């Protein structure tokens, strides 16, 4: 079904909050190892669509999906699909940085721990270091890994959330306006990071900002209207 170059294929996909139809029969493909930006006015369903890709909308009561979304050729809305397992393959970075109120180390180690990736403390430390390096945060925090993550500035917190996401080695990363809560300097550092991540990961980003979309060298723009 899915064309080989597409990581994700959306086919006739509709989404409802109760009686309200938020997404109307969408069809689009998302190319592997590129940045795909979703641009459009507020309230047109960009975030809703993004949250359909890892089925985060399942946590909202009264929602319903129709049609199919294929990840590597397999429908993520198939009845027997394990949602918890799906989310391990599709990471998500939120609009407001949301590190857990725990140490920096614990934040990054959270994913590997719950998934039982490793039992050894040394291996866990390696994963944490690699993830923080991957998120361009290691040099800033390597001497304070036991500090509470909430002591970091917002830009650092957002990069920590990215480190937390890549620690479980997903193939897709969803970003929901990841820079909207950040100042310009922090925004540039996160955008810089996104360009580098695109070499390894398929990235889907929601943004309001055309300049941002241009700066991060996006691949395809899915334009605004949900119809």
């Amino acid at each position, binding site marked *: 079904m899915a064309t080989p170059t597409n990581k994700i294929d959306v086919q006739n996909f509709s989404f409802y909050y109760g009686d309200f139809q938020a997404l109307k029969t969408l069809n689009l493909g998302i190319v592997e190892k590129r940045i795909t930006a979703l641009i459009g006015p507020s309230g047109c369903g960009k975030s809703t669509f993004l949250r359909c890709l*890892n089925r*985060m909308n399942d*946590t909202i*009561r009264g929602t319903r999906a129709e049609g199919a979304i294929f990840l590597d050729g397999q429908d993520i809305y198939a009845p027997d699909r394990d949602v*918890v*397992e*799906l*989310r*391990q393959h599709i*990471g*998500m970075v*939120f609009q*407001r940085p*949301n*590190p*857990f*109120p*725990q140490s920096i180390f614990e934040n990054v180690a*959270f*994913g590997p*721990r*719950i*998934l039982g990736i490793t039992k050894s403390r040394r291996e866990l430390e390696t994963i944490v270091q690699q993830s923080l390096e991957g998120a361009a945060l290691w040099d800033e925090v390597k001497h304070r890994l036991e500090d*509470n993550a*909430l*002591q970091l*500035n*917002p830009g650092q917190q957002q990069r920590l*959330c990215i480190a*937390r*996401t890549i620690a*479980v080695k997903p193939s897709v990363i969803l970003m929901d306006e990841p820079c909207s809560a950040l100042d310009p300097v922090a925004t540039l550092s996160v955008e810089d990071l996104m360009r580098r991540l695109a070499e390894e990961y398929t990235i889907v980003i929601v943004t309001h900002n055309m300049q941002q979309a241009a700066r991060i060298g996006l691949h395809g723009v899915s334009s605004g209207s949900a119809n």
Partner: protein
Amino acid sequence: MAVANEPASSPLATAPAPGRRWGEVIIESIIKIAGVSVIFIVGFIFLFLLWEGLPAILDIPLRQLFGPQWYPIEEHFGLLPLLFGSLLVTVVAVLIALPLGITTAIYLGEIAPPWLRDILKPIIEILAGIPSIVLGFLGWIALAPLIQTMGAPTGLTAFTGALILAYMALPTIISIAEDALYAVPREYRDGALAIGATQWQTIWRVVVPAARSGMLIAVMLGIGRAIGETMAVLMVTGNAANIPAFSENWLFSPVRTMTATIAAEMGEVAQGSTHYHVLYAIGLLLFLITLAINSLAARLIGVSGGRRSRPGGSL
């Protein structure tokens, strides 16, 4: 400090109109008096207990005061059995109430559907308002015979008291712990779920740790409720002021708590006698224990509360 005739309507006037200003002064002083008087009242209670209890501490040799014999009629005033009774009943009650209360709070706050939560939460809060004498009555009529059939010589035991106390502390623990869980921002849950955590992993590793200071308040208030409770334990613990021998089954022996002793004996004691002063000394001891628990709670919450504060953000 009287303000001269400023035009009251001028929006640029720096000083408020005189009428409003007096209103402010009066309201501020009422609030100030209310706040300060509470501190004074607590201080006076402490001084009063100290004044009435001190003679006992000075009159009775310390070795006897902390001895194992409580026979007031024979002038034996050993507080150890009462202290033992209070601690045993409280500790067992907390051990029962804590796991039950926390798991109920987790169910209500995290797992139960909203409509069920909206029904159960008010019911639990009503349970907190049941007079303790009613629970004591229930324990006496219903619980004690049950425990006696389990093989205890009498149904009125430390365990009976602990069960009733646990039941009394439960609504407090559940309600406050659930509030603490409810206050945890949704972003934390989303973050954990998006990594691929199961619902239980999210609750146990993210939500509960984030709510720990509130959970701790719940536990401390539960303990406070248990150790200060009087009427129910007076009815169901059997009121035997002795320490059961090691060979006996402690939990299923009658005991007497400090609170029950004061309640039972204060009415019959001659004012100004040693016995009278000893009862006040017991009150003083209770006061100090409660104070210690509360300040411990405040310290623990101060530590974790400080870590929760978030620079430049609102939680």
